[in-house]
């Protein structure tokens, strides 16, 4: 009964709209740049949704379907305003929001665990704890665990058949 969701790409964007990590799972790996663009343009729609959400005093993290190109783009914003964007392959079937939210929650957890890495803050001036650059640096290629976690989720969703 679970529809086949195909996760094509995942993007994490910092509260300042700086990219943290963008991973693509499309095989063969092509058009990675396209997903950068998709992530970036989604921020527009996310901004709109956030405005709508604050107007209705909603505290939901899930922002729903953002737009459809040749992939369906969904958005999610963590309480600390880190935006998570995923691109699902289009298939002519209903995508249940609950499934999408489950993916987002998994991704959120992956991000949280990675940011909690104490070594991220090694050698950083201590007063700088809240500096967002730390959050951005979690996506740096030096920190493999985050990528691994995200890739694992990508695989899990892909094998969700």
């Amino acid at each position, binding site marked *: 009964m679970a529809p086949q969701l195909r996760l094509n790409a995942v993007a994490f964007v910092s509260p300042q709209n700086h990219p943290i990590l963008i991973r693509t799972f499309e095989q063969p790996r092509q058009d990675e740049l396209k997903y950068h663009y998709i992530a970036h343009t989604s921020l527009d729609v996310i901004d*709109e949704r956030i405005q709508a959400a604050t107007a209705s005093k909603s505290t939901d993290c899930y922002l729903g379907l953002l737009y459809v190109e040749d992939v369906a783009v969904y958005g999610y914003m963590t309480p600390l305003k880190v935006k998570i964007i995923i691109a699902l392959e289009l*298939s002519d079937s209903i995508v249940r929001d609950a499934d999408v939210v489950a993916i987002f929650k998994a991704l959120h957890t992956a991000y949280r665990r990675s940011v909690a890495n104490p070594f991220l803050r090694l050698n950083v001036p201590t007063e700088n704890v809240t500096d967002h650059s730390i959050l*951005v640096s979690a996506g740096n290629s030096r920190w493999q665990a985050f990528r691994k976690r995200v890739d694992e989720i990508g695989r899990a969703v892909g094998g969700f058949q």
Partner: protein
Amino acid sequence: MFVAGLDVPSSSATPQSPSPKQQDPFVALAIRLREALTSQRKVAIWQPDKSKTFQVILVDPEVRFPPRKIAPAEDQQFHTPHSPLSPLTPSSPLYPDGLIAPIWIRKHTTLVPSVFVLFKRIYEHPHTSSRTPLDTHDPERDREREAEERRKDSELAAEIAQRKKSTNERSIKLTVVLMASRKMLDDPALDARLTFIRRQSGLDPRAALFVLSPVTSAEIGDFVRSLQEALYEPAIEYYTNHSKRVRRKRNRHSQANVSYQLPLTTIGSTSAQRPLRPEGWTVRYEYKMACFAEFRGEDDIALKHYHDAYSALHIMLGSTAILPPRTKRWAEAKVLADCISVKICKLYLYNNEHAMALAHHSSHMRLFSDLSRGWGIGEETFEFWSWLARQHRVFAELLEQGTRSTLKIPTHLPSPGVASQTQETQRGSLEVEAMRALGLNPTQALQHPGFYYYMAARCTENRRDRYLRALENESSHHASPGFVNERKVDHLSIVLELYTRAYELFKKYSTSSSQSQGRLTLWIAYLIAQTYYESGKFEMAVRFFERIAKTYRREQWDALLRPLLSTWYRCAQHLGDMELSVQLLLEIIGHGPQDDQDDPESLEEDLLAVLKSTVPSSDQVLTVDLTESGPLLDTSAVFWKSHVNVDQAAAFQITLTAPEIISLASLPFTSLLVQFSGDLPSITVQHTAPESDADVSSLQKIDLGDLSTSSSDNEDKDKDIKANLRWRPGDTLILCGNLTSSVPSNMTVSKLVLTLKEGNWNIDLPLHPNSRRSGTIPYPRWLGSLSPVRFIPVHRDNYSFVVVRHRPHVVKVSLSSEGPAYLGEEFPIVIDVTNADDRELDIVVDILLQPTEIEEADNFISVDEERSSSLIKGVEFGVLPPGVNMNKTLYLACSGAVGDRVIDISVQSRSMASVSPTTPVTPQSPSQVADTGETLRTLVVPTVDPITATHHVTYRRSTKPSPGLGDLDTFEGDYWDDAGEAHVVTTMTSVGPSGIFVEGLKLLREDGTYAKVNESTVDQDEDEFLTEWHTGDEFCDQCRISLARLDEPLGGGYIPGPGTYEVSWRRLLPNNQKGSLAKTRFSLPPLKPPSDGLIALLNVPNTAKLHQTIPLQLTIRNGHPTKSANIILQLEPDAVTDGFVVAGIRNGRLPILLPGGEEIIKWNLIPIECGWVKVPKIKVMNRRPPPPSAHGQAHDVEGEGEIVEVVDVRWDGRPEQSVRTSVDVARKSVEVPKVEMHPSDAAQFAAVVLVLP
């Protein structure tokens, strides 16, 4: 819904056949009619509204309809005649196997109407001299006129009949509107004439003949409305009939399917031209029915028929046997399918079924993509992409048309939870969860048309791509007609147009664009710019790039920037803008190479090549500011300390590190300028090449020496500092030195400028002193040692600057005071300030007495001559040379309640060295450079009472006889209505920790209306108590207060104390000194004499002589305000020890005692015994029943009445009434020990007299 043409012949006819006199009103009428009819309905793609209006086409009255069905002359095999458009008609363009032609639609929309309205003038006989009284009746003329009218009417009727004949052929409703003057309408003959015309011309009886006279445009509107109202029905009927006819044909056709087809196929095989297959006929009929339904405005039915037609068509196209690909019929069918698909989408959208519309649209594309693969025009051909682009574009245009009128793009807004939560909060979260689980199909989420234009543009790009690929291997490709066509297409301008439309729509639909350029639009803009680049319009592209890059840089999307920059660079190259090229190359280098780009040195080589091969357009220094985008070098400026004092050196290190991934080694940097904040001199480091490559370590440390603001001769500071300004990947250059400032300030490295010189190029590269490539954390560290290389991480936030400030002043402040302060005294506090610094300091002290929340506190402080209840500012201590101390005494005076008083003392010091003589700096001026210091002290002074007083009050009844009610003396002003006395015993205790010396103690009398002090012990022997009182010492005073009878109960129930004790005292200071004179006051306690009801006072002398008569007097007072008393008196001599001989009443009854009344009974007693002899017992009873709650009820066993208390006045003394409420009796604690005396005890009390011999 399409309604075919109406005719307004009059409008076209009137100008041609004008009757000059009456032309104006009718021409105007005709023009207005034309306007009214044509303006109401425009032919448009998006027409969802279903009002009963017609599409009006103005035609000539003699217009001819297209030919009807004709029987094929040469072939009598078919019985039924066929329309010239039928595939069965050989002359038809569809012959023999076409489906349907666009001309068919045109026939029904513009050539054949559903209703025909004919406007005509009715003949009006000219009245030349009518209505003159002379020729009222001219039968000759009337007859003539009638004949004329009849003739004209017949002509008109004939004309109409002619028209009617042609419309009847096609069963088109004909309606005639006769235009007549207003006068004509009143003519009684009109009805007859109209009937004649109608009969004669064979018009329908219903809604076929109207008469209209020239009227205003508003009325014309009404007329047009009613006309259409009347004709709507027949029009619908007309199309229904068409539908019925077609359905009949379809049914017949599908039944006769087999038999019908067989002969045809045999014919077809021979002629190689197969006639239309049954599927084709189905398509044809369904399509026709759909069209007719649409004309009728029945969208549901139309949608169904279109669907049927579409699916039939899909079957046909699915089989190459039925429709061989790349034939004319195949192409036609394809176009027809596309058209039907659009129609279906539109009908769905009319119904607001967005998801269905989009689903159909995408399924159409999917189905036909599949089919295309089969036809050999799959995804690798430009034909496919051209087709796909067209589908997207058509859909986008449809949506765009729709949104201009009624279509609303749905918002797939935040998950259903949000929308529903607002309304359905009560329904519980389960429901919301359930709704959320539903989700939606992303392929069916309709978006605004911009997206579809964008898709179309992408498809067109693909199309161009495929075309270019086809062009490459053109030699192998035989030039098909499609390819030849394709060659004529200007792909890029189509792409550009589509993108531009998408851009506009995105802009229109983005709400956030108001604050910032939307990112979606930027993305489209980027694509537009790319297209401009492709089409060689580099300048346009550059303008776009400039704008787009700003946002991408700000948000640090390097991945997006890199392709943009490289295209931009290529544009710059094409434009020959060398400055821009250099700038962009440097930025690209700053961003580092792309992951897949394997050669990190290629960019560097490119840049060097550009620099070497070109000259700049001007001699000016080119400044390339990369601070916004990625810097070339990672820089960090670190200070070792966060604070230094003036003239103290602050060590710093500036680290410049080249990134690992990119090579800068060959960039010819010539110098590095280091600028510091403030007046610090800047330093230039010149490049010097190392002697040999071998001794170049990856870490260079260059000492810049000491720099200071005070060094005025910067020239000799400009010494040659040289360093190797070439960075290999990962190389680090560290510049270190010391900064010294003579004034307090923030010192920081403000700017680093790298200069690059090559040929004529002179490029400045400003660098921010602390910048990192995006995605890395600033990581400040301090080089501890060079060999081995050790870094110390700097764990400070503000490592990039150092604060210079004055040395703090060393000022010692001590405060001394003795114990707690007493209320009422001026408590001395000594402020002692010592200058322990080596500078002269000007000392100013501010003293703030904090406000307290203590009740009635009235505190103030005083220093020198200043007094304040809160703040004393600027107490001058003067300029203190080093080592000198100075003190001042601060006095704190408190009154009110005990508690802590808080004093803040701020000692401000100002260095005399920094004060310029012209502008004396006051402590208030917030001058930053003033060398000031402040020492703060807070003192908490507990405040206590020095003396406390307690009071004990007893009351005595008056023994004087009360005056009579009518006694005139009582009305005198100074009459003292004696009501007894109060005895007050006041005990004063010295409670302060240090003793006091009492200088005076007085009772200040404040005689009131009801109480006055009679005498006090203080008034006597004063000297005895004027001594030092130490802690715990007590002093006692008694005073007698005479009370007056109350006229009425007092408000608070208390008589204010009629006097105040005033104690004047000085604190005993440790060194046998005495403090300032202070006074403490205690007022006498408020009094509340107890009141009596009925009372008997026994008055008997204390002593008696044996055998000498003593008087015994009993006064009975009725103090009750209202009740009179009935007194029975009984004297009971002690039977056992009869010590007295009694003369007087033994037993008797007194006259009724009125309220306030008094009776005195006297006895004479002769003692006959010596010693303490008891007076005979006297029993007083009130016969009147007392109120149940009164005392003595227990004794009232006989029911005789209440026993009245007998009080011996010698021992009279009562406390205050025990019912007293806890009224706050000032702040002096008045302790009245309660002596409980039961009245009955008093009654049993027997007076005793000492009888002496």
